[in-house]
C-alpha cells in the first residue's frame, strides 16, 4: 500500500499550512494537523482560537485562503458533495425550522440526503427513542425547549449515518440527561465512526477524546494522543 492510500485509510482530516482570513484578521495561520479515522478527536482552544473556523472549513461552509485540506480523502473545494454526504454537523444553533414539526424537519433533511423511506423510518425510530424525543416529534420546533431542540438537532445530524461527525461545542446548553445520553452514544460508536469535538472545556475534552489538537490564535500549539495532553498549555 503506498503512502497516499495509507493516509486515506487512516486519516479522516488532514491539513497542510491551511490559512483562512476574515478581512485582515487571520483566523487560521498555516495550520498543519491530522485527525485519525475512528475515535473521538478533540479540537481544543479558548474563544477565538479558530476552532469554529476550522470546523467550517472542514464542513465546506468556508473556503480556505491557502494551504491544503483533505476530508475523508476528498478535497472539500473540488468534491464538496463527496465530503458533505460523509459528514454530520452539530453547531451552536440547531439547524431546524421553527415553524415545522420535528418530524417534518427530519423528513425534509432526509430528502436532501436522498434517504430511502424505510431507512429513514428505522433511523428516526431508533434515534428518537435513544435521545428521548419520540413523543415530541409532532410538535412544532418553536414549542420545544432548548434541550429538546438540541436533541432533535443531534438526531438530524445522525439521520444519514455519517462517517464523520463534527460537533462544535455540542454540550453547551445541554442538560445533564442529554449530555449523558449523547456521551453514551458517542462512546458506543467510538470505534466505528470518527467524531471531531470542539470545546474550550479542557477537562471535559480530556475525559471524552482519544486524540487532541490545541489551537491558539489560529496556530496549532499541540497535538497527539490524549495521554500526552497538557491542560496547562
Amino acid at each position, binding site marked *: 500500500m503506498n503512502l497516499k492510500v495509507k493516509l486515506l485509510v487512516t486519516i479522516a482530516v488532514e491539513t497542510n499550512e491551511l490559512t483562512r482570513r476574515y478581512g485582515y484578521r487571520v483566523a487560521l495561520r498555516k495550520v498543519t494537523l491530522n485527525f485519525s479515522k475512528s475515535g473521538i478527536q478533540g479540537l481544543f482552544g479558548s474563544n477565538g482560537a479558530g476552532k469554529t473556523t476550522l470546523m467550517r472549513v472542514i*464542513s*465546506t*461552509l*468556508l*473556503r480556505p485562503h491557502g494551504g491544503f485540506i483533505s476530508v475523508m480523502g476528498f478535497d472539500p473545494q473540488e468534491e*464538496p*458533495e*463527496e465530503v*458533505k*454526504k460523509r*459528514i454530520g*454537523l452539530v*453547531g451552536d*444553533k*440547531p*439547524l*431546524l*425550522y*421553527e*415553524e*415545522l414539526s420535528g418530524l*417534518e424537519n427530519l423528513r*425534509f*433533511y432526509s*430528502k*436532501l*440526503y*436522498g434517504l430511502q423511506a424505510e431507512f429513514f423510518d428505522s433511523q428516526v425510530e431508533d434515534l428518537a427513542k435513544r435521545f428521548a424525543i419520540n413523543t415530541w416529534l409532532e410538535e*412544532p420546533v418553536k414549542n420545544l425547549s432548548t434541550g429538546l431542540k438540541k436533541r432533535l438537532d443531534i438526531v*438530524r445530524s445522525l439521520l444519514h449515518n455519517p462517517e464523520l461527525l463534527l460537533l462544535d461545542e455540542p454540550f453547551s446548553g445541554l442538560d445533564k440527561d442529554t449530555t449523558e445520553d449523547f456521551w453514551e452514544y458517542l462512546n458506543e460508536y467510538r470505534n466505528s465512526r470518527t467524531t471531531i469535538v470542539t470545546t474550550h472545556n479542557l477537562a471535559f475534552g480530556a475525559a471524552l477524546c482519544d486524540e487532541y489538537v490545541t489551537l491558539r490564535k489560529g496556530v496549532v500549539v499541540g497535538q497527539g494522543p490524549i495521554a500526552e495532553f497538557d491542560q496547562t498549555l
Partner: protein
Amino acid sequence: MTSGLSAALAIAKKDILTQFRKRFEVFSMFLFALIAVLAFSFAVVTGGAVPQEIGSALLWVIIFFTGMFGFAPIFLSESETGTLRGLATAPIPAWSVYLGKVIYGFFLMALVEIFLVPIIMVLFGFSLLNDAPLALATLLVGTLDLAAVGSMASALTMPSESKATVFPLVYFPTATSALMLLIEITKIIVLGPGLVPVLLIFEILLAHLIAMLTLSASVFHFALSP
C-alpha cells in the same frame, strides 16, 4: 444521493409550508399591493379607467415593488436562523438551493397576482384579454424572472450588515431591464396586438430569464460557502 431537482422541490415545499404557517411575507405583500392599487386608482383613474398607455406600467411597477416584500427575506431568514448551514452542508448541488428558492418566490408572487391582477383590471379599467395566452405567458415568465433576480439579490445581501439598504441596490438595477420589457409587452397586449413585433420582445424577455437563471445558478456556490 438525491437529484438536484428533487432537492429544489423539497426546499420549495418546505418554504411554502413554512409560509402558510407564519403568513408574514404573503400578508405584507397583499397589504402593500392593495394600498398601491387603491392609491393609484384614486390618483390616476379618470372616467372609470387609467390612460391605456400607463396601465401596464402601473401593473408591473406594483408587482415589482410587491416582490421586494417576498424576495428580500428568502435567504435572509435562513441566514439569520442559521438553517442555511443545513442547506449548505447537505450533499446537493448549490444550484438546487437557488432553484428551490426561485420556485418558492415564484409561488409566493403568483399567489398574490392571482388576486392582484383581476383587481387591477377592474379598478384600472383595462383588459389583458386581447391576447389572453400571451398575457398569461408574460405574467408567468415575468414573475419567474423577478423571482430569479430577487432570490439572487437576497442571497447576495446575506453577508451585508445593512441588508435593508443593499437588497434594493442589487434588485432594482438587475430587474429593471426585465421590468421595461414586461411593461412594453403588456402595453402592446392592452392597446391591441400587431402594433410591433411583440413576440420578439417576448423572446428577449425569455432570454433575460434564462440568462438570469443560468448565471445565478452557476455562481451560487460562492454564496453558500464564501
